């Protein structure tokens, strides 16, 4: 073909979606459809419900605007107990699991005889269903038949009615959650540790750094990006915790250990006020979105420094 035969001034128009794009859209379509049906639609339904009087005895579903939001946000229980509980739970659970998980990961990162066995045992909680673990722990802390009180009384200490007092009950819940999630942190941090380059540590060995200084100035800074991801994922997850609390204390005694998910559940399915439950859930969702963004921003800056 000669050059003059080609119309160089008017190249064919680009199509909106090329072959490649259309293929990609096709591949995404099933997942996108599932997401729309099972995530976006229920969320929209829930959001819609939170603006109406939507309960079984009032099938009108009257539009009431922000009435339920106002109720929840002015409910002293929600503002002064549920939200502080939730955030306190999130912070303590994530912080403790992170510290214990890091300690375990450091331990497992060393070579010692029987390491594989220790690793399997330590990772066992990951394989236990949270509800099963919670039932187990509830029984361990049972004030009449629980092993914890038996042991306490054996060594001469008074047994506690663990689940009948706010802070002891809260501690038991936290204990269960930390026990369940420490191995998860350990596993991810161990993977992080094993992917760290060897040379800086060798350089530090020649440089005469003590174990503490290696940990403080090398391991932790180099591990920061992994820690940030772990913390953010786990913080969001901890904020929504339901199963453990429901199984151990059902939010009691006297609604004093309720987290926001329990509050929403009780409002919706025990008080049968779906609208109010939805409103509580929406508020919780808004709070966690903001919180997660703040956590991520702050931690990301902290991790950036290490790069």
């Amino acid at each position: 073909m000669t050059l003059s035969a080609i119309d160089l001034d008017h190249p064919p128009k680009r199509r909106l979606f090329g072959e490649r794009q259309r293929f990609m859209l096709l591949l995404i379509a099933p997942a996108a459809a599932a997401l729309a049906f099972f995530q976006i639609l229920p969320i929209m339904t829930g959001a819609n419900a939170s603006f109406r009087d939507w309960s079984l005895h009032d099938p009108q579903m009257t539009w009431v605007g922000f009435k339920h939001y106002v109720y929840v946000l002015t409910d002293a229980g929600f503002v002064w107990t549920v939200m502080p509980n939730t955030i306190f739970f999130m912070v303590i659970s994530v912080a403790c699991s992170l510290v214990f998980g890091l300690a375990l990961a450091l331990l497992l990162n060393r070579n010692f005889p029987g390491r594989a066995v220790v690793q399997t045992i330590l990772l066992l909680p990951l394989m236990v269903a949270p509800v099963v673990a919670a039932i187990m722990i509830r029984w361990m802390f049972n004030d009449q038949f629980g092993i914890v009180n038996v042991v306490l009384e054996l060594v001469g200490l008074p047994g506690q009615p663990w689940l009948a007092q706010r802070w002891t009950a809260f501690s038991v819940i936290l204990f269960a959650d930390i026990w369940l999630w420490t191995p998860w942190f350990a596993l991810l941090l161990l993977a992080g540790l094993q992917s760290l380059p060897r040379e800086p540590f060798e350089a530090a060995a020649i440089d005469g750094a003590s174990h503490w200084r290696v940990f403080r100035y090398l391991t932790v800074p180099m591990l920061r990006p992994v820690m940030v991801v772990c913390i953010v994922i786990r913080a969001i997850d901890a904020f929504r915790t339901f199963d453990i609390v429901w199984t151990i204390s059902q939010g009691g005694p006297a609604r004093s250990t309720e987290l926001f998910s329990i509050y929403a559940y009780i409002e919706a399915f025990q008080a049968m006020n779906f609208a109010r439950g939805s409103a509580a859930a929406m508020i919780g969702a808004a709070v966690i979105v903001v919180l997660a963004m703040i956590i991520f921003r702050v931690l990301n800056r902290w991790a950036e420094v290490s790069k």
Partner: protein
Amino acid sequence: MAEVILKNVGKSYGTVVAVRDVNLTIADEEFVVLVGPSGCGKSTTLRMVAGLEEITAGVIAIGGKVVNELPPKDRDIAMVFQNYALYQHMTVRDNLAFGLRNRKVPEAEIDKQIAYAVKMLGIEPLLERRPRQLSGGQQQRVALGRCLVRNPKVFLFDEPLSNLDAQLRSQMRLELKELRKRVPTTSIYVTHDQVEAMTLGDRIVVMKDGLVQQVGSPLDLYRRPANRFVAGFIGSPAMNFIDVKVDATDTQATVAADGLSLSFTGQKAATLRAHAGKTVVMGVRPQHLLLDGADASGLVRFAARLSTSEQLGDQQLLDLRVGGTVVRVSGIDPSLTLAEGTELKLGAVPDNVHFFDAEGGQVLTT
């Protein structure tokens, strides 16, 4: 200032032997280069000196003290790694200061040491930057600085230039030589690059398969290789090898191969006589093969047919066929035009012709 002694040093991983029986005495302020192909045990040897690998046999002493059981930090050494191994999350200043702070050196003294090192290496403007903001050459300088500030007894270099591009590598090589003059410290330098080895080393240790092949000055290795491996490894382009059959009379010895028959008298003949009737390997460097017309007398001459020529600008490399083998010749006048298939006469000074045992590869001597 210190002397480093390796006596019967060996390293094995289970049944796999990585290094065996290394014996080496490195004098105070001497610069020794360990060179060899990948997996020859040179890095492992260096890491044993550093204390990063356990020594499974033999003894290593630094500055008159056996260090076999000493952790790296107590050996008074400093090491430059191939990938620099800088602390990525610290500034250059903190990188340099880290080792000194570990040893609880007063801050004023640290500042003084850093000022000295950065001036020496010309990296003053980089002090507040982080390693990732630096180029490869700058990072390498910081890694050198980390060694300098400590003022150790021994410097260890583990292929420090192999991550740099060719141009920067030759520049850094020069700078290392300069630095060496100003800071004369006992050094062990590992590389797989024979040019680095030749240019930097006071002495070179050639290793292969965990065994030391030869120890000597650069010229020694070039002129008197102990075996076929060293002969082929040192020098570029690599030495030509031809299998030849030896035939000897009382006065002279003749070696012959397909398309080749060379007669030697004197010392060479005496060496060859002991191998009469056997096959040996003849080795000649491409630089030592002269084209026809060289009027020097006493050359051994043979004919060869040109198969390929490579123009390098400053010289030509020729590939010539001698019977069934290809022989390479370098240093040919670049303006000489030769047609493929031209018959050429090649010559070599008998002293530049080496003979090696066909099996073990050891150089033949009388």
